[in-house]
């Protein structure tokens, strides 16, 4: 752990932390660009770095991107990322009341505190979960993967049948390539480049970046409804120092909510602030007017979002299970660096993982200070026209994909993935189950093959308590969702962050 800390404070690591946070804040602040898009676009850049520095930079982009969304939410009432919808309710109300600098500084402070508390949770919870997962055999892994698929399928607002359908289509797509059992090419149609399957990062860039370029191009053709930037107000620091110490309970409640929801797949930064905000309204005893510039409401939203980002890293590193689209891209980045997320990663590369965790803690501290003192200067990016963004996101998507393996075939895979993402969006089939299936599909098939050769009957598998618990919870969740139907209100349909 100490070696990890020392690695995280080298000048390369600090540069990765600072660079990642600033890039992330800029990406997040621009409406239409998301944290996931930022991470996916910068994965090829991490090849120039060691894996730990690359991961730290991507962590910075993730955290910074999520916070950056609050800048436009507060200043022009347009959430930079869908995660900042709740922030826009309270933050923009503050801005309209002439307290824009205070709203920005409070959002940055809350985001930083949420991230720091989550990073501490990551540092201590991940090794525990990882060592528990070391005892997993193929039955537990298969059951855990089924549990992960189920939780994503059940939690999304889109119809259950279409989520299930998307998951199976994703699983079928990743069977293209070499068969893990007998090692012969499967469904490759004679194309040699398909022997190793589709390049995961190329697919993810298609899903999250190039498709977004098309959406940006479409939006650039419509009249711009961008609101006026409200940026008046006095220096926020005195009020910030007065307010923050009085809201410790709100910070702790929101951070715990965020970390807990982050650990669960499918409850990402988009849904978390709604839940945290609802809890705050329920338990807050200050008689604040929520929705009209409530300090506690803004703190609850921002703290929980950042804590959720940290929380999602726990299952990602310890079990290899992504909880959101951004976490899925993280898995792709790790895989490209030759690292397989899961319990063995912690056992084999503890220094690398602790470097990343300490780096994540430090970058959140940096984000806090940068946000409080300098986030206002990022407001200039709100003026970048959408057609410029569309053009350069398209160019970077293609060039970034090519740079992964210096291979034009990957570019065509990425373009195919773009068409697929837009097609499924038009069909109202959520992309997250497909992404989960594409990432976890090969591992699932591998574990099923091991299970098939190691266990002769279902009875033997049912003697493994952890596997039974995962399967039972999966069945219960599916049953609950079927009984409850699809009616649920208060939370938005799953969108990418």
């Amino acid at each position, binding site marked *: 752990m100490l070696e990890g800390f020392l690695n995280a404070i080298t000048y390369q690591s600090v540069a990765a932390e600072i660079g990642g946070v600033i890039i992330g804040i800029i990406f997040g602040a621009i409406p239409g660009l998301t944290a996931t898009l930022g991470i996916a676009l910068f994965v090829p850049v991490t090849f120039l770095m060691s894996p730990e520095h690359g991961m730290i930079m991507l962590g910075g982009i993730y955290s910074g991107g999520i916070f950056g969304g609050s800048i436009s939410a507060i200043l022009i009432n347009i959430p930079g990322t869908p995660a900042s919808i709740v922030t826009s309710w309270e933050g923009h109300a503050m801005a309209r009341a002439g307290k824009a600098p205070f709203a920005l500084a409070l959002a940055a402070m809350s985001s930083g505190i949420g991230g720091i508390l989550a990073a501490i949770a990551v540092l201590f919870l991940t090794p525990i979960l990882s060592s528990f997962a070391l005892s997993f055999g193929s039955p537990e892994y298969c059951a855990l993967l089924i549990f992960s698929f189920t939780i994503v399928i059940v939690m999304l607002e889109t119809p259950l049948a279409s989520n299930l359908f998307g998951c199976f289509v994703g*699983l079928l797509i990743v069977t293209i390539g070499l068969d893990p059992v007998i090692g012969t090419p499967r469904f490759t149609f004679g194309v040699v480049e398909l022997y190793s399957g589709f390049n995961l990062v190329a697919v993810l860039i298609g899903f999250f970046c190039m498709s977004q370029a098309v959406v940006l191009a479409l939006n650039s053709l419509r009249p711009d409804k961008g609101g006026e930037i409200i940026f008046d107000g006095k220096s926020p620091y005195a009020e910030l120092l007065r307010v923050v110490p009085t809201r410790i309970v709100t910070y702790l409640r929101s951070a715990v909510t965020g970390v807990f929801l982050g650990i669960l797949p499918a409850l990402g930064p988009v849904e978390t602030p709604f839940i945290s905000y609802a809890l705050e309204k329920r338990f807050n005893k200050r008689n604040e007017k929520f929705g009209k510039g409530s300090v506690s409401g803004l703190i609850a939203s921002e703290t929980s979002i950042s804590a959720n980002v940290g929380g999602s890293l726990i299952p990602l590193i310890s079990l290899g299970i992504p909880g959101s689209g951004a976490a899925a891209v993280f898995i792709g980045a790790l895989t490209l660096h030759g690292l397989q997320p899961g319990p063995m990663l912690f056992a084999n590369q503890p220094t690398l993982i602790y470097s990343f965790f300490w780096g994540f803690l430090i970058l959140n501290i940096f984000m806090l200070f940068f946000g409080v003192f300098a986030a206002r200067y990022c407001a200039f990016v709100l003026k970048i026209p959408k057609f410029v963004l569309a053009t350069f996101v398209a160019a970077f998507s293609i060039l970034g994909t090519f740079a992964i393996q210096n291979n*034009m075939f990957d570019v065509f895979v990425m373009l195919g993935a773009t068409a697929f993402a837009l097609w499924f969006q038009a069909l109202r089939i959520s992309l997250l189950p497909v992404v989960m299936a594409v990432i976890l599909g090969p591992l699932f098939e591998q574990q099923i093959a091991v299970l098939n050769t190691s266990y002769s009957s279902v009875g033997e598998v049912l003697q493994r308590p952890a596997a039974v618990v995962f399967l039972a919870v999966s069945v219960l969740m599916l049953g609950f969702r079927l009984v409850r139907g699809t009616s649920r209100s208060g939370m938005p349909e799953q969108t990418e962050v």
Partner: protein
Amino acid sequence: MFVFRLFSFALIAAFALVLGKQAMGISGMASTYPLTLVTVVLAGTLYMIATAVAQRREPPVLTGDVSHLVAATGPERLRLFAFVILWVAYPWLLGMLGFIVTTTLAITVSLCMLGQKRILLAFACAAVFSVVFAVLFTTVFYVPVPAGILDDWLTTFIFRLQS
């Protein structure tokens, strides 16, 4: 929308059938996993088609960007289509014209097509971007992007400077 959904699910079913036919040729237990998936996807497709048929008289639920696309005017859709074609053609053109020329042209056309009125400004930005990235790819990232005449000149120039 109904026809689009029907055609889409039929296409997925056809894809699953093609894979299923190939999976039949895989020997022994290795075919079980893909064949199971093919069967489930086919069953899922039939369910989705049945749902689409049952809901055909209901107004289509259009969310976010899809509703923007439906609401777009003819010229707007044409420009969007041209944007897509431009960037799909870009990787092919890279091999023929080289990085600097293709990227400069693609970015200029893309910017002007989507709303930039000042063509010279768009061209200047695109040219600067292309040359800067050509230099970065050659000297920092070591990415062998397809080279044309201009790229070769630039590479020769950089190596002369370095030697």
